[in-house]
């Protein structure tokens, strides 16, 4: 008796697709939005996640919660979105010019008009956290697609560097060049909007 009810609950797997949108829609929507920074795209990703989840329903073993399982599917969709974005024709290095001199005895030193400025303590205070974050989000979305993709996968999805390289078709040395330049550009973008 006990046994059969256990089996039954395992078979149904505790998935409740009739309540997916109500129970998890907003959470998944937020998760997608704060990565792709676009409401329509986020909505599409959530919808695609539900459809993919229905198809894979039988593979749910009940070892994780329904939300954890849906989130794993959504994460894959987010990575797919960035992978497609990144495989565009965009050149890896783009036309960003480094903020450093490239000749003379001061070769490799900051250019006088692009020295990092003091952001003050405001940028780090909890009071301004939301404003800073929204600027950061805008600046992330302004990075060249491949840099953005590498950055989001590395720092938001926390994939390993190897995985990030695989998804974005870049060599390890390429990866470090992208990370370096993306940091430089991101920092300058934030500074221009923040100060």
């Amino acid at each position, binding site marked *: 008796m006990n046994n059969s009810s256990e089996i039954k609950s395992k078979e149904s797997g505790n998935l409740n697709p009739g309540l997916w949108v109500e129970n998890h829609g907003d959470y998944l929507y937020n998760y997608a939005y704060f990565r792709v920074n676009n409401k329509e795209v986020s909505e599409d990703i959530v919808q695609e996640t539900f459809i993919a989840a229905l198809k894979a329903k039988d593979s749910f073993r009940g070892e994780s919660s329904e939300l954890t399982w849906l989130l794993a599917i959504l994460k894959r969709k987010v990575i797919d979105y960035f992978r497609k974005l990144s495989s565009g024709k965009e050149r890896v290095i783009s036309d960003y010019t480094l903020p450093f001199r490239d000749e003379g005895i001061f070769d490799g*030193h900051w250019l006088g008009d692009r020295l*990092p*400025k*003091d952001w003050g303590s405001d940028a780090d205070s909890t009071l301004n956290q939301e404003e800073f*974050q929204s600027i950061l989000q805008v600046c992330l979305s302004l990075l060249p697609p491949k840099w953005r993709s590498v950055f989001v996968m590395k720092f938001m999805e926390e994939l390993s560097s190897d995985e990030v390289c695989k998804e974005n078709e870049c060599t390890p040395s390429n990866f470090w060049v992208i990370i370096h330049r993306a940091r430089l550009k991101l920092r300058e973008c934030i500074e221009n909007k923040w100060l």
Partner: protein
Amino acid sequence: MRVMKNMMGRMMTFLMLDCNKATFLIAKKEITHLTFIENLKLKIHLLSCKYCQRFSDQSILITRQITNISMIDPNNLRLRLTPEQKECMQKVIDNKLNAR
């Protein structure tokens, strides 16, 4: 004495970084550990370059805020789907469920 000076000079050149290379190591440090030599080179550079020190502080702040953005608190969601969006989404699911 001259030999000593020569050696010191060589060691200094070996340990010197320009800002381009220093910021590269700062960016790398946000992801992985630096080697002993890389760390030493960076520390020496940062002692004398306030701009790279700034870049370093700002990099740490940026990384922390990216992590903050990426963590979604289920009890404090900033965005909501509209009831219409939700209804539309659930309808797609229900249709697929019923089609089985």
